[in-house]
C-alpha cells in the first residue's frame, strides 16, 4: 500500500535554530515529491517540489529538501527558523498516477 511517513508530529524550536523534518515514502518506482505548508487558518501552499535532476531542491522562504532515493526519504531543512515559520508542514508523494498521498503532517511551533 502507498504510504508517506512523517516522523515528527509536533516540533518546538527557538528562533534561529536549525530545522529538519523527516519524510519517508514506500513506493519503489519513480516519484514526484512535494512539501506543502499550512499557516494557521490558511490553505496549503507549495514550499518546494522534486521531479528529477538535482536531488537538493530549494524552495521559498529559505527552505530546502534533499531526495535520497536509497533511503526513500525527502527531508525538509531550514538553517535558521523564524517565528513566522510556525505552521503545519505536509510531505506528499505522487507515485506515477493522477493523485498525491499526503503524510499526516508536522506541527512546527517556533518560540520567539
Amino acid at each position: 500500500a502507498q504510504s508517506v511517513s512523517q516522523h515528527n508530529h509536533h516540533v518546538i524550536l527557538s528562533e534561529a535554530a536549525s530545522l529538519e523534518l523527516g519524510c519517508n515514502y514506500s513506493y519503489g518506482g519513480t516519484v514526484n515529491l512535494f512539501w506543502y505548508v499550512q499557516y494557521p487558518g490558511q490553505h496549503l501552499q507549495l514550499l518546494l517540489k522534486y521531479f528529477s535532476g538535482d536531488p537538493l531542491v530549494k524552495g521559498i522562504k529559505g527552505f530546502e529538501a534533499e531526495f535520497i532515493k536509497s533511503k526513500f526519504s525527502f527531508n525538509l531543512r531550514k538553517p535558521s527558523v523564524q517565528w513566522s515559520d510556525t505552521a503545519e508542514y505536509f510531505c506528499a508523494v505522487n507515485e506515477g498516477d493522477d493523485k498525491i498521498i499526503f503524510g499526516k503532517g508536522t506541527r512546527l511551533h517556533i518560540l520567539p
Partner: protein
Amino acid sequence: NAGVTQTPKFRVLKTGQSMTLLCAQDMNHEYMYWYRQDPGMGLRLIHYSVGEGTTAKGEVPDGYNVSRLKKQNFLLGLESAAPSQTSVYFCASTRLRSGATYNEQFFGPGTRLTVL
C-alpha cells in the same frame, strides 16, 4: 485570477441533512480533488476527477458523491450528513501531467463543516 475558490466557507448541518460544496477554478486545470482534513490525520482524498465528466474514488469516499459537469467546477455532495463528517474540506486542482511529471496542486481556502 481567483485561483481555486470554495463555497460556502462555513456551514453547520444537522444529522441527516444534505448539502453541496462547490469548488471552482479558473486556471483551466484538468484534474480536481476533494480532501478532508482532520487533526492528526493529514489530508485524505475523498474523490477526484481527471477531466470533465469523469470522477474516481479516493481513500475515504463513503458518504460522499461528486460531479464534474463543467471543467472548471467540482461539486461535493453529502446526501445524509453524519457527525463523523465534521471536518475541514479542501478542494485542489492541477494541470494535466506531462510524462513522468505530476504538477503541484493548488488549494482552495477550505470549507469548515460541522454536523450536529
